[in-house]
């Protein structure tokens, strides 16, 4: 296996660009440290970071590096480029929400770590090799652990980082151990090689243990039940832009990975999650996790009085819906899962943006801080209403179509499996959305119905926050009304790499 460094640099050019940007941000911030005001340092660092991401997007769209490194270490094709563009856009959004990051004086490091996290996520999306996948996951996770604890003076931020780190470290160990078992059975560390190696493989205990352990590791990343315990605390304690990054960027990367891994590597040991005809394998495992996530996430969210915790449990529930896409749809699953994760990420980013603005002015993210938001900032409340209704899955917003698409995918006949095989999972999913309507509506009731506190100030977001909230809201409405705007390019990309239906 001859490694051609020029080719590697070419395939990872966008990532390299982002790393250079991160280093540049650090250097410039070091230079400005003594001379400039904190505000200026912040705007320079954020501006530089956002520019780097924007250049990365342009590069991916224009130069379009294509090909793959030996062993599937780095894969760059239309599909991974599309996902990377989404990840970069979400990173820019995170930077946009960080305009008020008064929680830390170390803005240079903050922006640099965000960018490195972005690099990790892009690498997750751009590999078909479990070794590289693990490294990329670790890069992304370590960045997020650091970011979660960035508000050093806030004990809750510390708690969030520690919990996230401990759970994450454990999950990573499981993942690595599990992958080694699967490697032992299949004899390959490439996704496709694994798939070939597992063809016709019986479900021996070693493989089953390996699959379960992989599921534990990945389940942690996507915050699926029962590996979700870190999520509420991390979301609540972490600085809000970081929580947005965890909810948006890392979810897209992780779900894309899960979908690809399921299709390329584990399809041969998929088993069946059909009602009454379970066959042990990957999909019934995922189905159980999906069902548990939808149930636990939605029911636990009912009891929340803090908007960030509510969004955390809603994220758990959404992970369940996205995993329904992994269970069903066969070769269409990459399309459904990516569509779901990407649209969810955009919605969550906007919602966290609103939460961050309210938090900065009202001093917290409890329901009471949101009381009468529609009177204090009508535009912000309208955007929040649209974003939350999209999370709830109300047409014509994109959250509805995403759910519809996932459920439809699950009811598509695949192989010997009839159209009704997964109706139990779909029915459960739709039933739990009814539960979710209650807490989403209750949140909106606080915003639109309750009266604002007497001494409340008007709430006005900064430029970056406005931009993120407006853009995400517009996207939610636009793609919701015309899903083909995103579905078209996605399916075209999938078809070009031979993963289309």
């Amino acid at each position, binding site marked *: 296996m001859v490694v051609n460094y020029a080719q590697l640099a070419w395939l990872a050019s966008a990532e390299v660009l982002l790393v250079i940007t991160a280093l540049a941000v650090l250097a410039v911030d070091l230079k400005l440290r003594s001379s400039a005001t904190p505000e200026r340092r912040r705007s320079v660092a954020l501006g530089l970071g956002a520019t780097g991401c924007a250049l990365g997007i342009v590069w991916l769209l224009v130069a379009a590096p294509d090909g793959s490194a030996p062993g599937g270490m780095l894969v760059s094709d239309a599909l991974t480029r599309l996902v990377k563009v989404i990840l970069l856009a979400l990173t820019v959004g995170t930077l946009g929400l960080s305009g008020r990051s008064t929680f830390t004086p170390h803005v240079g490091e903050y922006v640099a770590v965000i960018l490195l996290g972005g690099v990790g996520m892009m690498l997750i999306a751009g590999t078909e090799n479990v070794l590289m996948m693990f490294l990329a996951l670790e890069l992304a996770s370590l960045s997020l652990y650091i970011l979660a604890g960035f508000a050093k003076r806030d004990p809750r931020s510390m708690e969030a980082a520690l919990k996230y780190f401990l759970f994450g470290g454990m999950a990573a160990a499981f993942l690595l151990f599990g992958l080694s078992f699967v490697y032992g059975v299949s004899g390959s560390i490439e996704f496709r090689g694994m798939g070939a190696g597992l063809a016709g493989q019986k479900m021996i205990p070693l493989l089953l243990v390996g699959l379960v352990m992989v599921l534990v590791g990945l389940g942690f990343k996507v915050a699926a039940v029962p590996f979700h315990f870190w999520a509420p605390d991390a979301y609540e304690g972490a600085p809000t832009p970081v929580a947005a990054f965890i909810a948006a960027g890392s979810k897209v990367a992780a779900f894309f990975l899960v979908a690809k891994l399921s299709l390329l590597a584990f399809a041969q040991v998929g088993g069946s999650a059909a009602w009454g005809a379970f066959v042990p394998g990957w999909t019934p495992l995922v189905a159980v996790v999906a069902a548990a996530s939808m149930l636990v996430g939605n029911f636990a969210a009912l009891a929340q009085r803090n908007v960030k915790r509510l969004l955390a449990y809603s994220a758990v529930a959404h992970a369940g819906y996205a995993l329904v896409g992994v269970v069903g749809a066969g070769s269409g699953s990459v399309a459904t899962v990516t569509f779901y994760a990407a649209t969810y990420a955009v919605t969550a980013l906007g919602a966290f943006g609103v939460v961050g603005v309210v938090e900065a002015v009202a001093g917290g993210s409890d329901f009471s801080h949101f009381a009468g938001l529609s009177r204090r900032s009508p535009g912000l409340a309208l955007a929040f209403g649209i974003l939350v209704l999209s999370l709830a899955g109300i*047409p014509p917003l994109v959250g509805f179509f995403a759910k519809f698409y996932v*459920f*439809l995918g699950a009811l*598509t*006949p695949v192989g010997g499996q009839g159209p009704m095989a997964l109706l139990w999972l779909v029915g459960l999913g*739709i039933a739990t959305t009814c539960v979710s309507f209650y807490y989403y*509506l*209750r949140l*909106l009731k606080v915003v639109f119905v309750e009266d604002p506190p007497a001494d409340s100030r008007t709430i006005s977001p900064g430029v970056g926050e406005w931009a993120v909230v407006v853009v995400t809201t517009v996207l939610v409405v636009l793609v919701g009304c015309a899903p083909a705007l995103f579905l078209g390019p996605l399916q075209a990309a999938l078809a070009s790499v031979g993963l289309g239906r």
Partner: protein
Amino acid sequence: MFFLLTIVVSLAGALGVYLVGSRRPEGARRLALAAAVAGLVFAVAGAVQLGAPKGLVTQVRMPWVPSLGIEFHLAADGVSSVLVLLAGIASVSGILFSWNVERRANEFFALYLLLIAGVYGVFLSFDLFQFFAFYELAIVPKYFLIAIWGSTRREYGAMKLALYSFIGSAMVLVGVLAIYAVSGLHTFDLTRLAGTSLPIGFQVWAFPLVFVGFAILAGLWPFHTWAPTGHVAAPTAASMLLAGVVMKLGAYGALRVGLMVMPAGAKYWGATMAALAATGIVYAALVALVQQDFKFVIGYSSVSHMGFVLLGLAVANRAGLAGAVLQMFSHGVIAGLLFGVVGRMVYDRTHTRELSMLEGLGLARRLPFAAGVFTLASVASMGLPGFSGFVAELQVLGGAWQRFPVAALAAGVGVVLSVAFTLRVLQRSFLPDAPTVAAAGGGSMEHPEPITIPEKLGAVMLLGTSLAVGLYPRVLLEWIDSGLAGPLFGGLRRVMGWS
């Protein structure tokens, strides 16, 4: 093309009204009225242009999400026409009856018009995805209309209504997805799905799911309890819309998606559904008989009258269906009127709906116009000849008699009961035997504001419509019959054995 404009003008109106801002309620009201009137004009123009076509006339049809077989398919047959007309009439009269909304008026009318857009959309959608999207679009504004501007236990009533609606629509969604998957046609086109015959075994379990899911919104017993609470909690315009058109969405969905697509399931479950409907008619009428709150009486009367619609659907023969659709129209008009009188003309002036208090106020003397309108509306609601309710309920009873005589008898008892509770409430509110003025401290209306012009306009419009349909039902019946004779109902006609 006119029908498309009803949706467009309502959506544009909603946006425009919202942008007027909260400081200028007068401007918001006027713009909202203009949008609603424009919608009504387009509805009438569209209906007249359509006439009584044989089958479905497509207005707009284009691919929406081609890879999933989702289309934007706006079309209408005679049945849609009738209901679009109803939506137009109800929307205009609702705005006339809420002319006194001052608080956050721009949001109120924006949500109102959004709801109207959803309602028009449902009546004109012939793609299941699109149908469902509009159907849900109509639910969310209702929640806010009630929770923000409502009265008695508004937040509870709003949430209950929203959750019942969502549970119903969740059942429908499961059914819709299953229909798509089982049909294997890779399409949501209602015309094609209605033309195919799905496996009987599938229809037997999917039909009740879809039918009940929709019928929850139409007030099917025993899932009707959201209706009275929601109606009572709602502001006048919202309860007018709720009873006037939103409940019809449920019945309409049950007809289009339940009966048309799964006729064999409809036949299998006909007796059960008829029993539920007949129970609802009698039960709600009995409950209405003992209510102390004026609005609860009307709320339960709505459930009872909607029972006739559901009975007609359960019977599923020509007379039953024609009666059901006509009853949707008729009840939409009459219930809107009753809620308008109770909510706007009486409650906004007296600030009480307790019958025992209203008894002492001498309403007939102080608000003679309201008394007159309510008397006429009561007569219409009781189903006396000359008004639309008579024709509709007679049709349903006739249809039911052919298939389920027991249910028809029970519904007949319901008619008698409805006379009883309507007379009781009329007598206690407006025409007490001996008006003991200002008894028991209920009199916060020494000088009631006279009935305003918008109220009069709204009342006259609704009464006129009911009277016109009652005296000359031929036009609407022809439209409905032309719809029922169309190819969309071919499967149903074949299975039920009528033509």
